């Protein structure tokens, strides 16, 4: 059944130029219970259940981290900017109070001025055939 209640959304551009600063928007579906609300009939406090931290990685390397407390509104929306130098996989991880994580990924293709794509390849000395 496709009825999951923890949707995560991510909007990132598909293509970019080298060195360009791109805007990324994220939204999570989460009730973000602050831990101070009470049930009107029984008086019991609804326990705290929020998303704790958001980690953004590009090609596996962490470039942005954020910590949230109970003041962030529900179905939290966050939009930030990053600078891209090479094509890669952008991954956003939401970690909540109970240390469960959810992920959402998207690919960004980065081109330089001539229109060639810049791939995230690194060559080390041992693999060079010449020299």
């Amino acid at each position, binding site marked *: 059944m*496709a*009825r999951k209640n923890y*949707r995560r*959304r991510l909007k990132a551009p598909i293509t970019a130029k080298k060195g360009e600063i791109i805007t990324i928007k994220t*939204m999570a579906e989460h009730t973000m219970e602050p831990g101070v609300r009470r049930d009107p009939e029984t008086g019991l406090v609804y326990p705290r259940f929020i998303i704790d931290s958001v980690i953004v990685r590009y090609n596996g390397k962490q470039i942005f981290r954020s910590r949230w407390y109970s003041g962030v509104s529900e179905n939290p*929306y966050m939009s930030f900017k990053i600078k891209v130098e090479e094509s890669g996989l952008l991954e956003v991880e939401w970690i909540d109070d109970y240390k469960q994580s959810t992920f959402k990924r998207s690919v960004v293709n980065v081109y330089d001025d001539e229109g060639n794509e810049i791939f995230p390849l690194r060559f080390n000395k041992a693999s060079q055939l010449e020299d």
Partner: protein
Amino acid sequence: MKFLLFLFFVILGSSFSLSSEEILNNDYNLYDRPYSTDELRSGRSFLKKETMKMEIDDFDNPGMIWVERGKELFSSVLGKNKFSCLKCHNESENSLIGVVSNFPKLSEDNMSLVNLEQQINICLKNNMKAEPLVLESKALLSLSSYITFLSKGMPVNVKIDHNKEKFLKKGKELYFKRIGQMNLACNQCHDHLAGKSLRAETISQGHLNGFPSYLLRWGVVASAHRRFQFCNDQARAEPLEIGHPDYNALQLYITWRGNSLLFESPSVRR
């Protein structure tokens, strides 16, 4: 002397029933609209500009989460008959685009009104042999907001024919009826005082073209019936249950009252 006193009290008593409520005299026109087509303003124009930005952009709008979930549910197998809604309602036949204007519509035996959520439950029970979903649950609201999203941008066009007329009359009576401890009727604020402010909020014209909409006070998508319950709560009246026939009649009248506005669901309202 006693007879004169008796006459006095009879006249006093009868004058109460002759007091000027707008609907009790029988020569009002049922099809009178409070706003002409030029004066109609959707609820979006009464929002502050940050909330309007939240509603216009498809990504920033939190109600789109429900629309996406509704789209997935629409194409997934839901009942014992092992097919999804797409088997009958796909692009080539029985497309559901523009179908929201027909709701609330008459039930099969022409005895009561049925709104979009109740119709989804009827389809689930009869055609797909699934258990009907709980009214005002996330799954049902996702499906109904997806179906309303398909008609986004089309004008509201509720047609009243001969059979629906008595429900429109009942809805109009409920709209003009004073309820609750505060003794307020809907028309007093939403017909005469729209645009003026009430405790730092502007009174809107009270249209339903954005429902089922994401309400900021609860953080979920709510249907029109839940919004009516909240209105009743605020006037300190006893709220009816969701799916009550009175609320269906009221929904018919209010949707008809906003004919020629565009559908905006899922909208963001307070």
